[in-house]
């Protein structure tokens, strides 16, 4: 067996026999270990529950079979990985950081840089650059063929996602002006910006990604259909995640307003 440490395109026929990716296990374990060290007994059970869900989702997204299929066979599964790594995992991990941990970390001197990077406009801008660059055909074809390239894309998604979600799910509300209406507007803007790559993928005349177009086939899905599913997944899957967040924020905001100003 040709052992790989990270999922990337191998151009060998797909079969459903399990393959180990030790780099994925080490990465997820290291991230979870760092979290454990940083938390050091802070927080509640629910915070830890969010974090555990985040690490489990990260592992599922990176390891066999999703990681392997997305790494070199199906662009639709690659898109699923993007949704999980960039949109789901960061949100869960941020929900899993206890306030006291964040305060301790921020007080260590990182606050100014983090405060700047997590400014909504900067965070959204960086996330969009990551989103667009990591979905350009030249980037995907050039990087996904190597394990380091594939690793770089996954890490960029994760870091970009953390920055993107930070203004919305900050462990501490350090931007009081960025309230519920602005958060909803911020997320709505993200759904609009999401439309560009969606249209690019769904309505493309030919498959854009050589790595998936020329990959050994999986089932009877054609490369064109696979790309269309990827585009729809980006629009629908991304939309569901973002609109779930918007709806949650709206209901919480509404409940708070109701509690503060009860109807006569």
């Amino acid at each position, binding site marked *: 067996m040709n052992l790989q440490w990270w999922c990337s395109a191998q151009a060998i026929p797909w079969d459903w026999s399990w393959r180990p990716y030790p780099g994925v296990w080490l990465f997820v374990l290291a991230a979870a270990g760092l979290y454990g060290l940083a938390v050091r007994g802070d927080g509640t059970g629910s915070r830890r529950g969010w974090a555990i869900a985040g690490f489990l989702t990260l592992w599922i997204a990176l390891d066999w079979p999703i990681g392997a299929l997305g790494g070199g066979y199906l662009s639709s599964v690659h898109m699923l990985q993007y949704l999980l790594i960039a949109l789901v995992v960061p949100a869960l991990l941020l929900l899993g950081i206890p306030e006291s941990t964040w305060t301790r970390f921020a007080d260590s001197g990182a606050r100014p840089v983090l405060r700047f990077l997590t400014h909504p406009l900067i965070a959204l801008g960086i996330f969009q650059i990551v989103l667009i660059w990591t979905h350009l055909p030249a980037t995907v074809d050039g990087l996904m063929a190597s394990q380091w390239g594939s690793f770089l894309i996954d890490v960029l998604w994760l870091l970009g996602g953390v920055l993107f979600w930070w203004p919305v799910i900050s462990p501490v509300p350090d931007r009081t002006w960025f309230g519920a209406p602005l958060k909803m507007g911020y997320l709505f803007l993200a759904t609009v910006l999401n439309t560009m790559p969606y249209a690019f993928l769904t309505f493309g005349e030919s498959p854009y990604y050589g790595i998936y177009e020329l990959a050994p*086939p999986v089932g009877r899905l054609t490369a064109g259909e696979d790309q269309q599913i990827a585009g729809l997944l980006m629009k629908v899957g991304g939309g569901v995640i973002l609109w779930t967040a918007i709806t949650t924020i709206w209901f919480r905001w509404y409940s708070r307003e109701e509690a503060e100003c009860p109807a006569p």
Partner: protein
Amino acid sequence: MTLMSKLTIICAILIAGGLLAGCSVEPAERHEADRRERETGWRGIALENAPPKPDFTLADTNGDPFDFRAQTDGYITFLFFGYTSCPDVCPVHMASLAAVKRDLPVELQRRMKVVFVTTDPERDTPERTSSWLANFDPDFVGLRGEKATVDSIQLAMGLPASVYQPPDEEGFYIVGHASQVIGFSPDGSIRVIYPFGTRQADWKHDIPKLAGASSGS
């Protein structure tokens, strides 16, 4: 944080973004196809002074004789030697050609023939070949002959003869064969080679050109 620090970080982000956006990591094959298009106008490899269209007759999946030169005369023709158990190159080529054909104007679709010659006549019965090709396009033509006959056709075209690899413990074996598709203009005078790695966009670029091409044009 000072204004200078903020500006430094903004500049760093913009530079990083610019570097990422401008960073060309596209594989070399794309540059090759681009170069060929600039130099020859074709995204495939156009052969200069191409020999005449090969002249052979093999049985189609109905068992009828198929005279390749005569029955493809006047058609844009793509010829490929492969086998239905092929796990990678063959299904990708067939799927690409089928997808490209579906997207062509009807007039061009009618003028295009794809001919698949099996290099594995032992496993590729007419029924199996027919049903495999129908997964891609029911109009694709499947041909079968003795291995020695097919090998001699390939050798005459400058392609290597196919080679059977030793079977695994379950009796499955791989057949080594040429991975390129050979395209012919309707009059047979132009021959363009499409190696594995040819993208659908490349076929779409070349097919209309192939349709209108002749050695005199």
